[in-house]
């Protein structure tokens, strides 16, 4: 199911002159754009009462997220977290998985049983998160152990966590376990300065979260998460290091979420100083400016890509809206794979 970049607006001819890095940048930018557009749509559907439960945006975090998604390969393992719409797209999750899961379509991968960001396709390496923060880290580690047991080489496993999620016992136990097993795990920490409303001063006391790396015996990397170029480089490098057998990699990115924790939240607690400072830059704008500055594409091309993202989003939403909702009478209400053992 992993699709190549689907788009009507292909790179214009001139782009054949771009370097590989530049092409990757543009491709990453387009996933970011699509993520931004689809999430804006979700937010508007939420305001319109069309979505049950929460809507969680990654606004401001797309550069970091896409860098991870685009650095992974098809057969890798990836457990996205709440703010990973861009990474999901870049890794190959169909856009429809997003709209279907949010809107509860029976045809979505979670069939209306689970919602919003709790989606995935384990058979295709996208592990669906449970809500408990940190819980996916050991799971990715275990998936990598399985690959090793099965003699499959060259896999990287990646997952993300927030600044708040680093306080969980799960984060600690599993990063340590991965280090002991020297697994090719890339753990990206998006330090967006808040866990829901809680600032980092109430979350940890170390100078920088990357200082944790040495205590696990893993390689640590820092990056400005508002800068797509830097994120691509640092995250890409970490993925390469993991793939080359250097064990777990901890990437700590600094950024700010430019939205509420979820769409029910206005994020009023975010300090104005932070919003106005370097972390408050919108990574999408920063990437756009670089594209224009470097003449990797024209404003007209950007506009076309934006239109394309909007079209894809509208199509996905329209299709999802046409789809059947879950029907309780057609549910088997059976939790077990071994149906005959069900007490249902």
């Amino acid at each position, binding site marked *: 199911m992993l699709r190549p970049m689907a788009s009507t607006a292909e790179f214009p001819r001139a782009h054949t002159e771009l370097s590989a890095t530049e092409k990757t940048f543009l491709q990453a930018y387009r996933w970011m754009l699509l993520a931004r557009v689809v999430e804006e749509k979700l937010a508007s559907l939420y305001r319109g009462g069309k979505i049950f439960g929460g809507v969680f945006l990654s606004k401001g975090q797309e550069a970091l997220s896409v860098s991870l998604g685009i650095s992974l390969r098809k057969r890798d393992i990836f457990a996205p977290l709440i703010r990973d719409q861009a990474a999901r797209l870049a890794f190959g999750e169909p856009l429809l998985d997003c709209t279907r899961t949010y809107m509860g379509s029976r045809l979505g991968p979670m069939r209306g049983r689970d919602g*919003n960001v709790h989606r995935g396709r384990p058979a295709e390496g996208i592990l669906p998160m449970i809500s408990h923060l940190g819980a996916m880290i050991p799971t990715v580690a275990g998936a990598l152990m399985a690959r090793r047991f099965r003699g499959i080489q060259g896999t990287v496993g990646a997952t993300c966590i927030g600044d708040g999620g680093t306080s969980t016992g*799960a984060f600690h136990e599993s990063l340590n376990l991965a280090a002991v097993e020297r697994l090719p795990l890339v753990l990206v920490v998006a330090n967006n300065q808040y866990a829901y*409303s809680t600032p980092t001063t109430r979350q940890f006391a170390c100078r920088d979260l990357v200082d944790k790396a040495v205590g696990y015996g893993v390689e640590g990397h820092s990056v400005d998460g508002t800068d797509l170029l830097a994120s691509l480089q640092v995250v890409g490098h970490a993925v390469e290091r993991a793939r080359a057998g250097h064990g777990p990699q901890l990437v700590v990115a600094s950024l700010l979420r430019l939205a509420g924790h979820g769409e029910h939240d206005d994020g009023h607690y975010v300090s104005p100083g932070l919003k106005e400072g370097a972390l408050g830059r919108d990574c999408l704008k920063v990437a756009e400016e670089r594209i224009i500055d470097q003449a990797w594409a024209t404003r007209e091309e950007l506009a076309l890509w934006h239109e394309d993202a909007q079209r894809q989003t509208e199509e996905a939403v329209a299709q999802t809206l046409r789809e059947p909702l*879950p029907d309780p009478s057609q549910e088997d209400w059976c939790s077990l794979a071994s149906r005959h053992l069900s007490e249902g």
Partner: protein
Amino acid sequence: MITYLEAIREAQAKALRDDPRVYIYGQDVGQFGGAFKATKNLAQEYPGRVLDAPISEDAIVGSAIGAAMEGMRPIVEMQFADFSTVGFNQIVNHAATLHWRTAVPCPITIRLPSGGTAGGGPFHSQSMEAIYAHYPGLIVMAPATVEDAYSMLLEAVAIDDPVVFCEHKYLYYHLKAESLPTEAMPTGKARIARTGRDATIVTYSAMVHESLAAADELAAEGWEIEVIDLRTVKPLDTDTVLASVARTGLLLAVGEAFPWGGVTAEILARVASEGFDLLDAPPRRLNAKDTPVPYHPNLWGTHRPTARTISAEMRDLLRR
């Protein structure tokens, strides 16, 4: 008018006001006032006594136990009941055993925003009261009314034992009362939420309201159904339940939790062993289905008992 949620806030405000040993600890409970606003303005009104915690449920509960040993009366807010699984060990193995092992009390209150809401999904909807009630040393409360939310939370803080306080998220905004109570029933005593002579429904928390609605429906058909609100599930007020079954002869236990071994199993076991001869027909129970709690409202509405399924089950029992 005051909501169930506001009653919880008011109870905490009163506890903070009246007892310097009380503090509140949990994620986002400070300036922000909590994910559900159950601690709204409390950090501002009681500076230094309402603290934001890191995302560390195990350490949060562990620290509350230590503080209790040193004379405090912590209130811990879990952001959702479902996340208490991460602090499970401290709750069931440390808080619950402390007094029995050492004769030192462990007066902590752990607030669990519990139960299903539309769109909550498998990890923001759970009802964990049966899990905690299984463990010796814990008191488990599950208030169904605004009044109880208030007075039982005050009781929880006053009690010298660890209390797991299961407050229902669905009731947070839906349930309103004229004013806060000045009197309360004693802890451990069930309440007859509606009197009736034809059959007894024993239930608690949000299911009290579904059951009352079912009783309304059945009243239109001429049946008088008694509805018992357990209030606390441990201790469980067997006496009140048996007295009601003695009057009606028929029992339906209703719970929102998973079916295997929940509160309803405990009710049926007690009535069967202690009130067998009071029963005119086999006792029944109605629980959620034996799957995780589904996300989509279409599924969720079928997963848990509702007035409709309760009245259907009761009708079947009455017409046996």
